[in-house]
């Protein structure tokens, strides 16, 4: 029996729930050398902004215990060159393509989204309202329910693609934000983006990142991500996409148990380029071993009230 790994968001059907997280997989090309990209549920692009961005000064990353910090600064080719130079490659894949969109004003989000509208090869949009590395930008949208609502509503009104709102963990109550974007018409939420963090070079008495602070990702943040996914999945009706420190099939299954319909692999790609496909394979094997017809049968099946 081949288990059913498929998942739907809006009207889009994915062959499996394994995605690769924005900013960790470029525009897809690089990892094509390691495995057949069509085996993934979907590829999510680096965040695309209206204009090309050079990004922050190096050093942009450093390692921390079981994690890493990044302050890339949304370096990307801009929406125009994305459509011209990157989309053709993605269009030729059989896997779904999710374009991640970022901006520093609602207008900018809307402009990017309008430019992406109707372009062949795009299946969904992921709206990054949570990047901790853009100063006047994303962070505000992500930490205030009203702003989050406005941003997603504006995007919703200007796009026919299904929309995933990507949420920031740097908030007191992520559920509040999730409910706001659901209300605004998001078809799914993805969480979490990185936690704001910092590292210091004692020898030089300087921050390790030129941007001083950056975003923390990797196994270190998995407990935080799991808690947020669990809380959110109990409150929203739309699918929850879980990410944060997923490195293997076990981690992915834990997120699904906590209520995630899909999962994303971010930092895990760096540690093992084949991490995401191995998880696709691993989920299949798990379903077979546990005689699950569909992976979604496991979703939210965390036992809370039993004695042992």
């Amino acid at each position: 029996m081949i288990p059913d790994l498929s998942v739907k968001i809006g009207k889009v059907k994915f062959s499996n729930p394994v995605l690769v997280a924005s900013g960790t997989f470029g525009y897809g090309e690089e990892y094509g050398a390691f495995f057949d990209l069509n085996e993934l549920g979907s590829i999510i692009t680096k965040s695309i902004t209206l204009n090309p961005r050079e990004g922050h000064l190096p050093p942009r990353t450093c390692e921390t215990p079981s994690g890493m910090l990044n302050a890339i600064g949304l370096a990307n080719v801009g929406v125009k060159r994305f459509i011209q130079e990157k989309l053709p490659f993605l269009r030729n894949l059989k896997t779904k393509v999710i374009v991640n969109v970022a901006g520093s004003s609602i207008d900018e989000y809307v402009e990017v989204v309008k430019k992406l509208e109707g372009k062949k090869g795009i299946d969904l949009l992921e709206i990054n309202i949570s990047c901790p590395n853009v100063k006047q930008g994303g962070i505000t949208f992500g930490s205030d329910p009203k702003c989050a609502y406005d941003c997603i509503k504006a995007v919703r009104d200007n796009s026919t693609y299904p929309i995933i709102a990507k949420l920031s963990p740097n908030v007191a109550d992520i559920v509040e934000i999730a409910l706001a974007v659901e209300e605004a018409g998001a078809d799914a939420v993805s969480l979490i983006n990185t936690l704001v963090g910092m590292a210091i070079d004692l020898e030089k008495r300087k921050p390790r990142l030129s941007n001083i602070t950056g975003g923390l990702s990797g196994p270190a943040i998995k407990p935080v991500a799991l808690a947020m996914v669990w809380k959110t999945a109990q409150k929203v009706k739309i699918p929850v996409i879980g990410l944060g420190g997923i490195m293997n099939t076990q981690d992915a299954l834990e997120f699904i148990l906590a209520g995630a319909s899909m999962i994303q692999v971010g930092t895990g790609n760096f540690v093992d380029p084949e991490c995401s496909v191995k998880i696709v394979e691993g989920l299949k094997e798990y379903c077979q071993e546990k005689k699950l017809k569909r992976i979604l049968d496991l979703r939210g099946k965390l036992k809370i009230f039993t004695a042992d």
Partner: protein
Amino acid sequence: MNQRKEQGLLLSVENLGERLFRLKIHSPSISKKALPGNFCHLRVNESYSPLLRRAFSIHQVETEKNSFELLFKVVGPGTQILSEKKTGEKIDLLGPLGNSFSLPAKDENAVLLAGGMGIAPLFYLVSSLLEKKFDPQKISLFFGVRKKDEYLLVNDIVSTGIRLHLATEDGSSGYRGMITELFFQELRARRLKTKRTRFYACGPNLMLKKVSEISRKFKLDCQISLESHMPCGVGACMGCVVNTVKGYKRVCKDGPVFDAREVILD
């Protein structure tokens, strides 16, 4: 280049000096494809400390034996763990990655500048040239270290018959001072041809910054191999960039070899 992942088999671990190690690794795919300047990205263990892969230049290749070598210095936890590996262990490798040195034509000269561990990729460049029957007398190597016990592979280098210029910062052997100073003197004294000569450099950032300035000044055709923190190593994360006259470039994918006149180091 069809990048691949491979489980290499550790054939030997040699301690070449204080904190200096050489690993020989069985890896058909890397040893078949590696060019001078390429690097591999490896995972030192299966745990999350350290989490990320570590990059090392390809230092030597024995194609017939399907093996290649790395040369490294213990500077932190990753290299520490690597130095404690035992023959027979597996190593999770990505490679060969990155671009490679563009080689001199037969009638050109090659001048190489190595600072400390910078010898690692340049040694492979030398042996590749010699294997291609390049005249050893047309190759000059400037090799600088802090003090003489940090010299590496000097016997191997001498036996190739190439021209060797040594410098130590403390003057314990060869020229006293930075290798770039010696190089600069030789250039200024016109003891080095700059026409039809290819220059290559690898070493600490400060040295490469100097090389880059000199290259601009003397209009040298000079390639330098850079290092950077590399989360992905394959061009996907934009984490490893270096500033150049053409904007930020990824050291892992657009490099690690760059035109010395184009990079802007600080």
